[in-house]
């Protein structure tokens, strides 16, 4: 048995010895990574037009039944036919996997030619690390830039350069099941106080009032930030915190916490909400087991193809204590395509993405997936056979008077994680609003030293 002990001791010894040498080792690593990227940027210069080229296209459309997956494949096939020397290699992952994979790839400076990022604060670390190529020239090419909704590209621009182009631009709404509302004899609420009453009535009739997939903690945060948008009397609360005009201990924030807690206390969410992931939460609504569902308008397509299609309406999140404007929404500029700065075939990649985005609106419109895309679509939705709910959602888009981005798109990841956990905690534990505020403020200060 002493063999084991001596083995363990020897291991620790080796560890401690080698630890002294590790410093120089990783310096070497860094050097080689740099020289690697220098080589990569030299390469496009020596390319020949007919050389076989492979472009890696990392994306988040892995589901073959999703219209976006079909559109992507169609456009890629088309491009292959037009450009025989170019191969587009698809790397389709679901959102979480893609986020993780990209971070791992970024750490070793091996970003795929085309990848997916989220707007504003979430993509900033990548831009700061100079991993993405500026796409200004690509946007000028064939007038691509003009196809995007006005101001949308700002969320993806830093210091005058645009680094990514989004596939969507959504707002947060409340979907509701008309049949269940009728069954409980309630009407669409126009104030938060009415909403609480609706929740209580639904609950007493044995209907789950609101479905939420709170295991993915951003869902609760998204709803909570909509409440802050109301109690703050308008957008810009988080920006004010960043600009040091306000702190999280501002009454607007604590009032939102109180409102949120009253919703939880009224039994608004399904039992065990924090163990439901996004899909499981959404399925509750899609199978008619819950009466309301707060989500970004990207959910429209999924609800249309579910069993509750035809029974669903949408309404704007109501005012709280008479504060806020229902026409201000949580804005969700979509995930976006970015191009690696170290791409071996930068120009070809830009050409492909240009082609892809130019054809994206037309194709999605035909596939009935154009609700909430980030580009201007020509065409009559009604005539094309879009559902009443889709038309209702499109109607809401026209009434948008601004709003806020999600928390993790505004704050750095460190602060965002504390926030997400703090809100998730409200689902299971009652906590004083001032304590929640303090927790946020401490996290914000810790992460912005």
């Amino acid at each position, binding site marked *: 048995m002493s063999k084991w*002990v001596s083995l363990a001791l020897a291991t620790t010894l080796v*560890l401690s010895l*080698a*630890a002294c040498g590790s410093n120089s080792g990783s310096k070497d690593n860094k050097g080689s990574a740099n020289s690697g990227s220098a080589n990569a940027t030299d390469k496009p210069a020596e390319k020949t037009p007919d050389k076989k080229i492979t472009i890696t296209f990392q994306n988040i459309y892995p589901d073959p039944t999703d219209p976006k997956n079909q559109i992507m494949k169609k456009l890629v096939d088309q491009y292959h036919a037009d450009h025989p020397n170019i191969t587009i290699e698809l790397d389709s992952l679901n959102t979480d996997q893609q986020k993780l994979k990209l971070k791992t790839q970024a750490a070793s400076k091996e970003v795929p030619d085309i990848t997916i990022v989220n707007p504003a604060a979430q993509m900033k*670390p990548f831009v700061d690390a100079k991993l993405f190529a500026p796409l200004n020239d690509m946007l000028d090419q064939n007038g691509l830039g003009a196809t995007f909704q006005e101001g949308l590209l700002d969320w993806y621009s830093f210091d005058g350069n645009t680094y990514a182009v989004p596939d969507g631009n959504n707002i947060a709404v409340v979907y509701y099941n008309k049949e269940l509302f009728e069954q409980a004899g309630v009407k669409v609420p126009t104030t938060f106080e009415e909403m609480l009453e609706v929740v209580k009535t639904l609950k007493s009739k044995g209907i789950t009032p609101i479905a939420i997939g709170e295991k993915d*903690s951003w869902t609760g945060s998204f709803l909570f930030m909509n409440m802050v948008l109301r109690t703050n009397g308008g957008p810009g609360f988080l920006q004010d915190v960043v600009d040091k005009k306000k702190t999280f201990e501002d009454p607007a924030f604590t009032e939102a916490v109180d409102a949120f807690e009253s919703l939880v206390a009224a039994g608004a969410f399904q039992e065990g909400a*924090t163990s439901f992931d996004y899909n499981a939460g959404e399925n509750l609504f899609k199978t008619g087991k819950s009466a309301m569902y707060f989500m970004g308008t990207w959910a429209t397509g999924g609800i249309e193809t579910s069993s509750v299609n035809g029974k669903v309406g949408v309404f704007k999140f109501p005012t709280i204590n008479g504060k806020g404007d229902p026409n201000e929404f949580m804005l969700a500029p979509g995930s976006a395509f970015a191009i690696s700065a170290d791409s071996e075939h930068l120009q070809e990649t830009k050409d492909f993405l240009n082609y892809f985005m130019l054809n994206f609106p037309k194709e999605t419109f035909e596939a009935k997936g154009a609700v909430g895309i980030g580009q201007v679509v020509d065409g009559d939705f009604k005539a094309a056979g879009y559902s009443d709910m889709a038309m209702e959602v499109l109607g809401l888009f026209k009434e948008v008077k601004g709003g806020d981005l999600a928390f993790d798109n505004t704050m750095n*990841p460190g602060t965002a994680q504390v926030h997400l956990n703090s809100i*998730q*905690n409200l689902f299971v534990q009652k906590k004083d609003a001032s304590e929640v505020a303090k927790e946020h403020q401490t996290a914000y200060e810790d992460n912005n030293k």
Partner: protein
Amino acid sequence: MNVLKVSRFTIVAFILPCTLIYFGIVFVPILVSLYSGLLDWNGIGQSSFIGFENFRNLFFHDPVFWPAVRRTLMFAVFSMAEIPIALMVAIFLRRYIRKPNFLVSSYFMPVILSVVIIGQLWKTIYNPAAMGGMLNQMLETVGLESWTRSWLTEPAVAMFALYFVALWQYLGYHTLIQFTGISNIPSEIYEAARIDGADGFKADRYITFPMIIPIFKISIVLAFIGSLQAFDMVMVMTGGGPAHATDVISTHMYNMSFLSMKYGYGSSIAAFLVILCLIATVIINFIFSSLEKRFS
């Protein structure tokens, strides 16, 4: 060493490739992560060397870390407490069942199932009764409504719900190990003991227990190290939530490295975990070598 009658050179030549690979995939990453633990680095951009600042924050300012360590150690304690039970099961199987192999293999089944499947399975079992949760429905059927709860989302019970699943999954594993150990004890010893009047539990006390100690130790080490690294099951079932209530060291490390994008900080947690594993192994070995000396 020379019983094999080969030169030292041959021995070196044959073990070198494995040694190199082993160092490359075990020690080099450990060292790199130890070093990253000294950096202020988001995993993407520039890093700066900050010495032991990460460790200082980890030990003194992180409200999640110590509870996570406590849960991890509890996990280890529970898994180790399970092993005597596995031993009892193994002894009973050996003694009272004529063809025990089938049962042992059945008990082993959960181990070869993917953790994701197990997690999903138990998630459904733990669900609220309204969502088809089997456990709560059973409690209601037998009139224990007051015992029903949402097992995975109440901070006070969620972690125990997770412990239970891990224990359930690995009972068969340890039973198999113990069972093999018992089967390897020569039957002549038992026969001789029977002649001397030692049967049943007396035989266990004086023959099985002392002779199984080395096997028992393997189980203990495996259970301990395994539970220190517990990650997949927690991730699948609760993701460390609600609000950190089920975070263990490794999920905290994951959250910090990949979600909060504090790669350096996450690495310092990883370093802590490595060191914890090493210390634990040394301690367990120490305890067992003294135990063995006492019994043999």
